């Protein structure tokens, strides 16, 4: 299949390219990038007034399969991914069963192949069953395709287990990813501890519940020399701890979600669970600190923590309703809305180049000869309507928000997978 992306502003941070160019794709590979490429039986994607970027990679999503397909399947999750401009996602291991054996990874790979939309990189568990007790088989998981390790959704509470895990896995490719929430401090919290929780009478999680585990995990990373990634950072103090770690040359990276950049804990006044998420939405000071940390480079990656649930589950009482919501399809709009003045090359680095580097996967570049994973976006105002999501999870606190930036097209392996006007373009496997 030949594809010609015509007349877009091509921005490739990996090579310092920012210019209006045509991009020719053939056989799933980028064949040429130049000012004008002659059409020779290509499928044309008009990218006039749009940005053409290396494919976005979301290194933190929950695809719910195997085991929780009422919430999401790999097919619906990867459809949501390409609709959100992501050519690849890394899926967290809190599935049923957990991703702690090569067999589960093989099953995921099979489903991904059947879906034929976005690429999926499995993240293996740190401990068997994510129970925080026995180490998972890192070599086997890595050989099967795991790109990182995490018990996301849970914190490995036992420091001895965590240290041993990191020591054992030190030379296995792929970082550890921390879900930094201290269970005891968090308790049965449904929201952030602060002035709003005080008057709403809701059980609340202090910032310290995150900070104390960020600090602990950074010390374990330094002690074991294991590359480490901090997921969904939400507090100003956590950022300070990460800056301190880097001043000591500890290999620490971190990510931020769109909701922690944009939303606050005042969303709980109606006692609905649509904004219930872990870590909880914090206050305005924290989100301002997060935005500053994106600008100053402390934050490496934009990740969504896409965590779909059914409407029925989220409609329950706050104490019962699960944490999280769908994020893939609003992410790019939300990030741009949060930090509208962020330079485009930095925006793309956060969404593509850095996640590829951290996970050690192909991508994050538009170099000629590279795999043709391409994201095309433009400044096209749109209003979020969760009912139209491809994700099974029709829940987001951004419902009704108007964003300025929107995905125009997503090309995966040289094949047009999504176009704003045509929707998901079903792969041949579906035909």
């Amino acid at each position, binding site marked *: 299949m030949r594809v010609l992306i015509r007349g877009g502003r091509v921005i490739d941070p990996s090579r310092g390219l920012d210019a209006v160019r045509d991009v020719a794709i053939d056989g799933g590979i980028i064949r040429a990038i130049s000012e004008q490429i002659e059409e020779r039986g290509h499928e044309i994607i008009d990218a006039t007034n749009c940005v053409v970027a290396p494919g976005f990679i979301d290194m933190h999503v929950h695809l719910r399969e195997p085991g929780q397909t009422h919430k999401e399947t790999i097919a619906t999750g990867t459809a949501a991914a390409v609709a959100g401009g992501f050519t690849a996602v890394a899926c967290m291991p809190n599935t049923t069963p957990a991703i702690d054996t090569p067999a589960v990874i093989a099953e995921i790979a099979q489903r991904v192949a059947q879906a034929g939309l976005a690429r999926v990189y499995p993240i293996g568990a740190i401990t068997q069953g994510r129970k925080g007790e026995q180490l998972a088989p890192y070599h086997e998981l890595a050989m099967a395709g795991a790109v990182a390790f995490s018990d996301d959704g849970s914190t490995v509470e036992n420091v001895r287990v965590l240290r041993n895990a990191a020591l054992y896995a030190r030379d296995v490719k792929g970082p550890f990813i921390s879900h930094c929430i201290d269970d005891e401090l968090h308790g049965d919290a449904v929201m952030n*501890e*602060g*002035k709003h*929780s*005080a*008057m*709403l*009478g*809701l059980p609340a999680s202090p910032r310290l519940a995150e900070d104390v585990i960020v600090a602990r995990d950074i010390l374990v990373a330094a002690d074991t020399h294991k590359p480490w990634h901090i997921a969904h950072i939400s507090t100003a103090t956590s950022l300070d701890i990460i800056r301190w770690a880097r001043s000591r040359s500890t290999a620490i990276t971190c990510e931020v979600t769109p909701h922690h950049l944009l939303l606050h804990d005042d969303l709980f006044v*109606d*006692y*609905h*669970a649509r904004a219930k998420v872990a870590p909880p939405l914090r206050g305005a000071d924290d989100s301002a600190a997060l935005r500053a940390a994106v600008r100053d480079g402390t934050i490496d990656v934009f990740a969504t923590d896409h965590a779909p649930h059914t409407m*029925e589950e989220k*409609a*329950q*009482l*706050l*104490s*019962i*309703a699960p944490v999280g919501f769908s994020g893939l399809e609003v992410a790019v709009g939300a990030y741009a809305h949060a930090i509208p003045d962020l330079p485009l090359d930095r925006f793309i680095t956060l969404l593509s180049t850095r996640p590829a580097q951290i996970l050690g996967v192909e991508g994050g570049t538009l170099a000629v000869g590279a795999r043709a994973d391409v994201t095309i976006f433009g400044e096209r105002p749109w209003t979020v309507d969760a009912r139209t999501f491809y994700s099974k999870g029709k829940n987001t606190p951004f419902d009704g928000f108007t964003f300025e930036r929107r995905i125009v097209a997503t090309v995966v392996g040289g094949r047009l997978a999504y176009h704003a006007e045509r929707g998901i373009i079903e792969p041949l496997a579906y035909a």
Partner: protein
Amino acid sequence: MQTRSAPRSLLDIDDLSRDEIALVIRRSGEFRTQLPDRSLLAGVPILNLFFEASTRTATSFTLAEQRVGADVITFAPGTSSLGKGETIADTAITLRAIGVRVIVVRHHESGFPRRLAEAFDGHVVNAGDGTRAHPTQALLDLATLHAEFGRFEGLRVAIVGDILHSRVARSNIVGMKMLGIDITLVGPPTLLPDAFAQEGVRIERDFDAVLPHVDAVMMLRIQRERIAASLLPALADYTIGYQLGTQRLRVLPKGAIILHPGPYNRGVELTDEALADPRSRYETQVTNGVFVRMAALDMLVNGSAVRA
């Protein structure tokens, strides 16, 4: 008197305007002098739906409802599946179809009455939700204060103890702020986080410094569970800082009153002596509760304009 259309529900005290609060208190005083006939809410089906154990509040509501002539149904589902969110809307639809017009609800989770009110086509009265709100308790506390001092503006009230877990304190903070009462919260940081500081509300850790300057002191129940939750070292330690006992009764101004929403723990937040003190208004509060609830139900169902 300025009036507005009848509030559909009473989820917290700020669902009423200042004038409506004054009206409820005035009417409750009238009822105390002379009970109305049973025509006020004659035949109005009211469901008392208590998901959480309650003796005083449930009894007080039931008596109030009977005295205004309502058809009272009492249902105590405990913490059964009815408490799960997916059935809130279905439950509400069913209850309205049966003919229930008013639901008086208590629930262990903050926000439940609000969610129920969204789905129920009738009046919802919050009889206490989680640690969130207890508006009729605040109304009876305000009625007790008004009966004593004849005014609200400028009164100085200290609320002492476990503010963090107290729905009574929260509703009183909201109501007292609306009415211009000077509020000081007193307690240790584990039971009274700094986050409670807000416009018009002071936080003070030193009970003895506050005590000489109050018109009323509201003592809150301290539960033994707080020790297990490592929020307190021991009840005896707590009493040193925050118990109202012999020494502090001497410092409490003569014209001040002692309030307690009950149930109280003798020897913990207050002593036998404090309960027996002539300034204690515990029994008056309980008595006022019935009349205030009669007046509040009348206002919700019949509208404030009717009685203004």
